[in-house]
């Protein structure tokens, strides 16, 4: 029996289907992310779990109780909103204490729990300030404190870090993850940022067109994305369209624009097929030593890595190399490219 389960949930707005046959089981204490581009239905799904929207069909259960049609203020869910939605006319402590007050908790107990939670998010000294005098990161932590102080059975995070700049965002990812572990609350994160989803989640549900395209642990779905959409949404992938020219054992030989590539998997001879390899799995070797030769079109230094764009008979190729402290081949040079045999994969359409 899962802690949270969504069964065949669909949401229709007029003639358009925002969420279609959404099925998901979340275990107690799990951190799960809904990852997808805008308009993929991830926020709608979150709103249905929160109770702000009713599913057109299907049911939602939390802790064995059907909550599909219950009011949002009875669901006992903590939510961190994208805009934080702090109450501007209340101090930090009043903001955090609001949920406890609504639960009729006595003033002294309230004060104590508010201070405990503010301590957890390291904001104790700002308890009497108003939200407008806080920085983005501090507001974010107030919003988190306000959501977890009520000890909700479920914590929903709606793009909680998108308004922060890159450095603070990375710090907050760690912090959020640590706090979630400490509190142990079942958490759902909605995000369009794949790095954020991968850094924080136990499992990721990659969503597209109102459906789950891929569900699994971050490492698993990054390495085995399964379809074209997932593989391009999680990192990027060099895709080659070709035709199966031979099947031998567990390998197929794919003819892509005249280049023969060996790939693990199965295919019917003569059928169209798409294979792909991630930029960081490609190695640059001497000309003539690799699978094919390619010409370096552009080379960009990014600090921790080099980003290359190559031209080859397979088409344009993106390659990422770790910066090891040595100067590497420059623009205009011809190099060979190679990859480990298990780095190239077959993709289903989608």
């Amino acid at each position: 029996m899962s802690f949270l389960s969504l069964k065949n949930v669909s949401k229709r707005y007029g003639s358009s289907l925002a969420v279609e046959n959404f099925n998901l089981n979340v275990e107690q204490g799990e951190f799960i992310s809904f990852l997808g581009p805008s308009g993929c239905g991830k926020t709608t799904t979150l709103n249905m779990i929160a109770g702000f929207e009713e599913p057109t069909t299907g049911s939602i259960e939390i802790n064995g109780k059907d909550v599909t049609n219950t009011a949002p203020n009875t669901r006992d869910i903590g939510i961190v909103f994208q805009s934080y939605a702090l109450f501007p006319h209340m101090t930090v402590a009043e903001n955090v204490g609001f949920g406890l007050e609504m639960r009729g908790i006595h003033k002294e107990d309230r004060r104590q729990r508010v201070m405990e939670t503010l301590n957890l998010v390291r904001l104790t000294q700002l308890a009497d300030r108003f939200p407008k005098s806080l920085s983005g990161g501090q507001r974010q932590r107030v919003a988190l404190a306000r959501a977890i102080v009520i000890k909700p059975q479920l914590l929903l995070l709606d793009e909680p870090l998108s308004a922060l700049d890159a450095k603070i965002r990375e710090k907050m990812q760690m912090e959020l993850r640590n706090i979630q572990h400490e509190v142990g609350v079942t958490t759902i994160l909605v995000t369009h940022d794949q790095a954020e989803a991968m850094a924080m989640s136990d499992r990721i549900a990659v969503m597209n067109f109102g459906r789950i395209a891929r569900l699994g642990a971050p490492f698993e779905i990054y390495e085995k994305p399964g379809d074209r959409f997932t593989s391009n949404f999680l990192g990027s992938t060099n895709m080659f369209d070709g035709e199966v020219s031979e099947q031998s054992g567990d390998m197929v030989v794919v003819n892509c624009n005249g280049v023969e590539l060996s790939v693990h998997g199965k295919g019917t001879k003569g059928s169209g097929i798409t294979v792909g390899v991630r930029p960081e799995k490609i190695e640059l070797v001497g000309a003539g030593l690799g699978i094919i030769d390619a010409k370096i079109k552009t080379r960009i230094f990014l600090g921790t890595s080099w980003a290359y764009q190559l031209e080859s008979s397979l088409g344009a190729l993106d390659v990422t190399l770790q910066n090891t402290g040595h100067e590497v081949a420059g623009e205009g040079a011809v190099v060979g490219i190679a990859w480990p045999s298990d780095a190239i994969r077959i993709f289903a359409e989608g």
Partner: protein
Amino acid sequence: MKRSISPYLLSGPAVLIFLVMLAVPMIMTFILSFKSFGFYTGVTPDYGWHNYIEVVTDSYFHEIFFRTYAISAGVTFLCALIGVPEAYILSRMTKAWRSMCLLAILGPLLISVIVRTLGWALLIGNSGVINDALLLLGVIDEPLKMMYTTQAIVVALVHVLVPFMVLSVWTTLQKLDPQVENASISLGASHFTTMHRIVLPQIMPGILAGSLIVFALTASAFATPSILGGRALKVVATTAYDEYLNTLNWPLGAAIATILLIANIVVVMSYNKYVERKYASVFD
């Protein structure tokens, strides 16, 4: 550094209009209010505080000032009571409905004050539409007295001044983060508590600004109290008018007008101070 005169030239016409149309008449009214008046002598330049002393000590004027400010307070309260929910509902509407409803709300402002007020007279007069209908239906035996009552003045003023409240509140509602209400509800608050604890405090500056406009406009309203209040139910503005044009006691009329202006300024300024102090810590 050479100073440009173009800013002065550009603001010149506006300053000129302001001086000629507003400052000069006001100063002249102010000076006039210190002059004397006799039935046989007319206005004489015997300067003194006697007009002010008359207004301040005569209970006849006390009653008029009290009525004016009671009406102003009542109209302001009713405008807030009607205008706030109206603005809230308006902000939740789809665009097409909103522009239609906005037009309906602003409607009274588009009609000339005389036509609008006489419209009310047609509606609530002794042989007006309402009384005729009620008599015909047998609900009442004789016409209800609605014309020449304070209630009539209040209702008609609320009708025309509500748009100011709606627009003022609506402006602050648009600054409200729509997720704030969901945040409150997710924390276990009911819709009523959310309204009262979260939404209302945040739109308070808009309500207070709207109240200020409504209060000032009511306190200095002339046409509506004059037509619907008649001769007996005087407010300050109609009293000043009567002193000028019926009694021909211009200095006394000028003194009443001056006191009304000063009283309004004092009310508006202290109200504004209060609002700024109360909400400065919370809002940008």
